[in-house]
């Protein structure tokens, strides 16, 4: 696959094949990430489509000097997810209560524990553990210094560990 700078140039010129390659590689991963951030499969699909639509319409939004294309896409997706949460603000409390109620009987412990984390911590852990983003990429996505990435990752892991440990069937032995 072409490097990020070349890919952006091709997309700017309206090269559908280049954009198709980008979409095939990243859209499924972004959508799965957004499912965990948004806790809503349809919304995850919509936000994924919106993120790529924006990339297609405004490829200049990505600046290769500021980070990788992958980091840009996940950062853009996460910002749109945050907007989605803000618009759904009134419904958040109900959803959080529901996730607590479900946790006692949940089969997927880690999924349930993740769902009980704040959105930012959930995003950060997923991007690091599943997507394997580097600290530099996470700093770009979250728009924070690298030192802050390290401290936030630690805080998120500790929160997840405490929730996980409190689960009745947790595998953790700490």
């Amino acid at each position, binding site marked *: 696959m072409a490097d990020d700078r070349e890919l952006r140039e091709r997309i700017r010129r309206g090269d559908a094949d280049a954009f198709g390659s980008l*979409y*095939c590689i990243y859209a499924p991963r*972004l959508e*799965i990430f957004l499912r965990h951030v948004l806790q809503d499969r349809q919304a995850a699909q919509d936000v994924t489509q919106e993120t790529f639509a924006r990339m297609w319409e405004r490829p200049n939004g990505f600046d290769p000097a500021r980070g990788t294309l992958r980091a840009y896409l996940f950062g853009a997706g996460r*910002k749109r997810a945050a907007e989605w949460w803000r618009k759904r603000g009134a419904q958040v409390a109900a959803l959080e209560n529901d996730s607590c109620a479900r946790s006692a009987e949940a089969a997927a412990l880690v999924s349930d524990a993740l769902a009980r984390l704040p959105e930012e911590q959930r995003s950060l852990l*997923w991007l690091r553990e599943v997507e394997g983003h580097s600290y530099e990429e996470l700093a770009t996505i979250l728009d924070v*210094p690298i030192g802050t990435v390290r401290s936030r990752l*630690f805080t998120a892991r500790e929160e997840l*560990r405490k929730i996980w440990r409190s689960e009745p069937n947790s595998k953790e032995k700490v």
Partner: protein
Amino acid sequence: MKCQEVSEFVSALYDGETIPKDAAEHIGICDHCREHLNAYSSMGNEMRRLASLEPESASKPDTWQQIRRSPAWWQKGFATMRIPRIAFASMLIVILLLCGGLVLVRAGAGGRVLILGYKPVPTGPVLPCTMTIVNNHATTCSHITHLSSGALVFNARFLRQDEDRTEVGIRTKFLLQTESVEGDGEAQLRDVPEQILSFEQGESKRIAVSGMGTIELTGNYLDHIPTLIYQPDETLDPQENEFRVVTPVLIRDQKVVVNIDGNSISCCNADATLMIFVPGEGRYLISGVPFEGAVEGSVHLGQIEFVLEGHKYLLLTSMPITRSEHVWVTHEADFKPSERMVRPEEARDDRPMFLVRSLDKLQQPRIPHS
């Protein structure tokens, strides 16, 4: 070392990051820290297992075709046109000229920056919209201007320069005071059709804005991007009681805390105060007047130095900040814009921001816009 002192390094070590030697030595002999390391590893494995079990994504390779760029109104039917396209294009140009929608812009000799000024008619502030017309840097501008009757949302996009003529796309919208302003200018105008216009240097033209009236636009050229893009005629010297902050960089103990692009200026407020918000850090207030709990700092042109909470700070900006030689500073670590800022575009906890307002406003429970 104690476990508490190295706890953050356990997480960093798990990520393969370099950690201090003494922290690594402690982790190597401490069962408690190693248990945490193992727990992080187990959690990571479980998350990756969870991801592998996820139902298939709906974002199939062929679905991206749905989001390809929609053709512009003038492109619809153009491809299947049955009369000569050149004839149709000529006809279209004549129609546009007759409607007064096409105005010619002549770029000044050597001018590479278009300053497109616009103002509500008959009276209103002139708002310069700055765009470069070479390479692809800063080719759009978006403003939301709060007027007495509502908010004017304006977006201009550089399209092309043909010899000495420049073409721009304009989108406008007026929101009544009763309507909420959510998102930035581009988000507000997403569904508004674009008017393609061009301007003759120095000539003023008017376009209608639904619900508001008319705005007047004027095109001019500069050979550089002005430092103050909203006030291109300004000089470096601050006015009396003026507080101006351009692209601030806040440094603590020789490490950059935040580096933000943009500018914010307050004129004629004796208590003008800079607020810098950094996610994870809270906010800093830097005021031209003393206030409760604040420490004194010194000003030298575009630099402010102060010592706060045992740390030495240096604020650097691109221009002289104030005529005053002293400022007063506080730090509130738990400040969240979402809990205090009234304007939705400012009430965001996830990105750094700064602005200059009166101290009185910044200390209110709900911080109003200017």
